[in-house]
């Protein structure tokens, strides 16, 4: 048994830090170069700018971008955190009351089935088109994956492990702390990773309902003034924030879930 071997195995399989960044970066670079070339060759419509055009407007837009992004980020993050609290509380109820599980999950599915773009105007009427709407829609968008992740995660304990804890005469609290919680962590992190871009998208859609601050508003302004490079700059910024949020959670996960889950254990 050698730790070095296991480490190098992990290096090749999941690639470590560099391995995670490099392939997507290379793909993005290739796509960027291809678009640049296509634009220069006149193959693309006026609605698709060359990456160099987008980059050219970036410095002048940086301050605006940051000002708008702050608002979107704040709404998305707040909605995300509140949604996580609500989802975890409901998951707790669903798990401790067997009869409550189906109704709670059904409500989750129902909420998830209503398109956010249809919900946003309804809530705009109720709470106004300000930052509150952003928080609410971001929360709703993130809700179902968080609920499902928590419920499934806490149910994911191995049947034998449950018997083991019974034979050891473990208390309910010990089962939760020593068995259910660690078993649930991979599911919960997966849910958090899926929900983060969703809440950002929710905040963005809320801003289309007519607020004056936020990346969503910035996209609308740029669209109406037909400033194509700025539209794209804003979209790319949203993508970058989404990817960053996902990456940040994945980073925390890699520090917390240090044991190989079934998917990657491989002996």
């Amino acid at each position, binding site marked *: 048994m050698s730790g070095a071997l296991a480490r190098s195995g992990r290096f090749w399989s999941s690639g470590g830090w560099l391995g995670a960044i490099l392939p997507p970066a290379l793909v993005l670079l290739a796509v960027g170069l291809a678009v640049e070339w296509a634009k220069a060759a006149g193959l693309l419509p006026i609605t698709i700018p060359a990456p160099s055009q987008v980059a050219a407007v970036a410095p002048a837009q940086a301050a605006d971008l940051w000002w708008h992004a702050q608002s979107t980020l704040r709404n998305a993050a707040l909605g995300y955190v509140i949604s996580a609290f609500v989802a975890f509380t409901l998951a707790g109820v669903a798990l401790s009351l067997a009869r409550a599980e189906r109704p709670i999950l059904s409500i989750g599915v129902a909420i998830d089935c209503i398109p956010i773009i249809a919900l946003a105007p309804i809530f705009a009427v109720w709470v106004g088109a300000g930052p509150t709407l952003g928080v609410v829609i971001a929360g709703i968008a993130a809700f179902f994956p968080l609920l499902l992740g928590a419920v499934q995660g806490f149910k994911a304990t191995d049947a034998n492990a449950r*018997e083991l804890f019974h034979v*050891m*005469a473990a208390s309910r609290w010990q089962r939760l702390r*020593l*068995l259910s919680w660690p078993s649930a962590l991979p599911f919960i992190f997966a849910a958090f990773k899926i929900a983060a871009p969703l809440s950002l998208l929710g905040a963005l859609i809320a801003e289309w309902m007519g607020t004056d601050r936020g990346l969503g508003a910035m996209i609308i302004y740029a669209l109406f003034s037909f400033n194509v490079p700025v539209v794209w700059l804003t979209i790319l910024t949203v993508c970058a924030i989404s990817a960053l949020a996902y990456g940040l959670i994945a980073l925390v996960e890699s520090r917390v879930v*240090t044991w*190989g889950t079934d998917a990657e254990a491989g002996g």
Partner: protein
Amino acid sequence: MTGIVIEDVSKSFTIGKGSVQALSDITVTLPPGSFTALIGPSGCGKSTLLRLIADVLPPTSGTIRIGDKTPDTARRAHEIGFVFQDATLLPWRNVLQNIRLPAEVAGIPAVRDPRYLIDLVGLKGFEEARPSQLSGGMQQRVAIARALSLDPKVLLMDEPFGALDEITRQRMNMELLRIWKETGTTAVLVTHSIAEAVFMADTVLVLAARPGRIAQSIAIDLPRPRTLAMMRDPAFNGFENAVRAALFGDEVEAA
């Protein structure tokens, strides 16, 4: 040392509207410090019997005593060690932490030093390893060490080496006998292997299915310590044949 007394124990499960009798009128006494093997066809209720002793399931009728305690009291007093068919280690804990788990749950210091147990099951140097870094045989050794960590009065094993290859299995059996002798615990082993049952046990209980019942109790009158050489002994083969006859009855003659 603690014996196990099982009296008129029956267990039935309700499946849909009907009820299936898994065990019927089991009466047997396992003396203190003995090694008993349970063998029988699939569905004969041997795992169920083990779980009744461990208080994982309650019997439908009849009584079980572990020493002077009920299974429930014995379990709460941490007198029962259980080894599952798969190791059932917590993947987020290393070997040492897994072995310490029962003491942690019980809120008492480990009765047997975890490092001594690691040595006992031959895993010295692997204290910090995660279960995913260990082979199946090594994981099962950790599970045995964990089951022994509070010095249980009875050690219940549900086909602990069923998933291992023949060579590893034989080696683990030798080690298990050595550990059993050192700890003086009353051991019950569920197995599918006739040779394993005869090699390990003082008494082989042959169970028959539908409903699960004890078809025959065969005392294995072979000297201890058991050695691999004994398996070539005509006496050993005699016991194997006796178990086989109890398992298959007339089929042995017919074939």
